[in-house]
């Protein structure tokens, strides 16, 4: 069932990413720090890929490379045949690949509906009125209509993340880049968010590139889990997750789930120990 191509309800059907020997060397003070080294992975259109690895191993560096926040220093990143990042070229960040951040980045000075309408307005795809209308409709459809006029600060972290996901999805991106988006949530809120995210994923079949160090989260969500090595980050192991979709939170206690977890835990633990022994400070 992994990589199952279901009829996409989304307008754009693209979103295949090739990461080809991607590397990143930070060299601010002449002391080269290799954050990512020769990272290679083919991500199919509509695939849900989760990258796990020890904290600070360079996963975010990789995501920043795809997003266009930070240039890479070797290899190339190709999105639907277009090179979006290489040492010589770095396509501006844009709404084809939207990031949802660790601690949330809803603009506190805008109401929920204004936040969601932000993309279409700044891209001048719609008039402000149209964008607000569309945002409101979208929020109502996912059960967030009641909070449309609230400021983010007044909402729980879980609701904030859901809104943030809507703010991304309204732009019909090719790829969603999620950088530990549920890190700040407690375990229960997180499991609710997982169900919610999978519902959205099943409905839109966007390509998702998701970073975490929570193994349950990784297995529960992914089509494939990629274990990244401790710094410098390399692909250590790729595990297809053949659990059928739609998934419910009950599968995390199933024998298949636990078997997968054992394999991944093994690989991750090895890397975590390596990182621990080196004792290097984490990168962002």
């Amino acid at each position, binding site marked *: 069932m992994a990589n199952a191509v279901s009829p996409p309800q989304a307008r754009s059907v693209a979103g295949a990413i090739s990461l080809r020997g991607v590397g990143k060397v930070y060299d601010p003070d002449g002391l080269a720090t290799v954050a990512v080294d020769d990272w290679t992975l083919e991500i199919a259109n509509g695939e849900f890929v989760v990258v796990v690895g020890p904290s600070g191993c360079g996963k975010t560096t990789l995501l920043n490379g795809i*997003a266009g*926040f930070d240039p890479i220093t070797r290899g190339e990143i190709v999105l639907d045949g277009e090179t979006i990042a290489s040492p010589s070229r770095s396509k*501006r*960040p*844009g*709404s084809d*690949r*939207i*990031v949802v*951040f660790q*601690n949330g*980045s809803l*603009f*506190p*000075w*805008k*109401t929920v509906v204004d936040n969601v309408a*932000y*993309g279409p307005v*700044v*891209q001048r795809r719609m008039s402000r009125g149209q964008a607000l209308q569309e945002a409101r409709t979208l929020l109502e459809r996912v*059960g*967030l209509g*009641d*909070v449309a006029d*609230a*400021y983010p*600060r*007044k*909402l*729980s972290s*879980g*609701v904030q993340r*859901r809104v943030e996901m809507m*703010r*991304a999805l309204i*732009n019909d991106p090719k790829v969603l880049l999620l950088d530990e988006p549920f890190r700040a949530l407690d375990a229960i809120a997180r499991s*609710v*968010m997982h*169900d*919610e995210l999978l519902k959205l994923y099943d409905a839109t079949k966007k390509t998702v590139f998701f970073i975490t160090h929570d193994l349950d989260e990784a297995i529960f969500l992914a089509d494939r889990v990629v274990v990244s090595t401790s710094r410098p980050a390399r692909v250590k192991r790729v595990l297809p997750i053949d659990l059928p979709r739609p998934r419910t939170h009950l599968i995390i206690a199933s024998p298949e789930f636990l078997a997968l977890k054992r394999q991944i835990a093994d690989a991750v633990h090895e890397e975590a120990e390596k990182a621990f022994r080196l004792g290097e400070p984490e990168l962002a």
Partner: protein
Amino acid sequence: MSAEAIESSFGRRTSRAPGPRRIGRPSVNIHTLRGIAGIAAFVAVWQLGATFHVWVLAKVPTPVDVATAAWRLLHDPRYYIDWLISFKRVFLGFIIAQLLGIPLGLFMGWKTAFRELTFPVLEVLRPIPPLAWVPLSILFWPTPESSIIFVLFLGAFFTVLINTVAGVRAIDERYIRAAVSLGATPATVFRRIILPGALPSIGTGMAVGIGITWEVLVAAEIIAGRNGLGYMTWEAYVAGAIPTIIVGMISIGIAGYLSSMLVRAIVARSMPWTRRA
């Protein structure tokens, strides 16, 4: 997430609790009563001290003397004109300071090269007290009025500038990245992220700045003025009318308090998202 969960996470804010921090709409409650009690106690101690010649209060006129002087002034149209003139000067200087300080601060916070270029100059100018500028500004500005406004302007300018720069620099990189990721151009980021993101800090600068402007006023009017509350106070000293000096001082205090209230209300109004409901 179930509808119930949404309800519960949202339920908190649907009932708008009557916040104690409603600016500009005082109601008679325990907080107001305490404030009144404080003022009454202050006046009582003053009255007793002045009546029984206690220590430094021996030469201070009693509140009754001051109230008598105030009553006389309240029937003098010049007193109201002094209020108006001082308010006009303070707000003129203050507003010019905002008009120049906020854009300059935003730009300094945003562009590192520009900040590095301008910061040292401003850091040397900043500690110079506005009063030290008075002689020079009298020489260089064509009218006494313009030199007063200039000195008042300086009082508020550096405060709002520093706060604006700090506000921009404190904006979380995530917001900028999120905006760019959603398709914002640099100009849009400036207008829609940098400006609102720095607003809370700008508001603090404004609230502090208006206070400083009033502090500077008296000295500016003494040196270069022919009217205004500051000049009135000074004139009373020259005439030996001690109760009138105190009326002048209290007038300035009240004027400053009213101005800060006004500025804080405007600031709070422009940032509805910081309101605690």
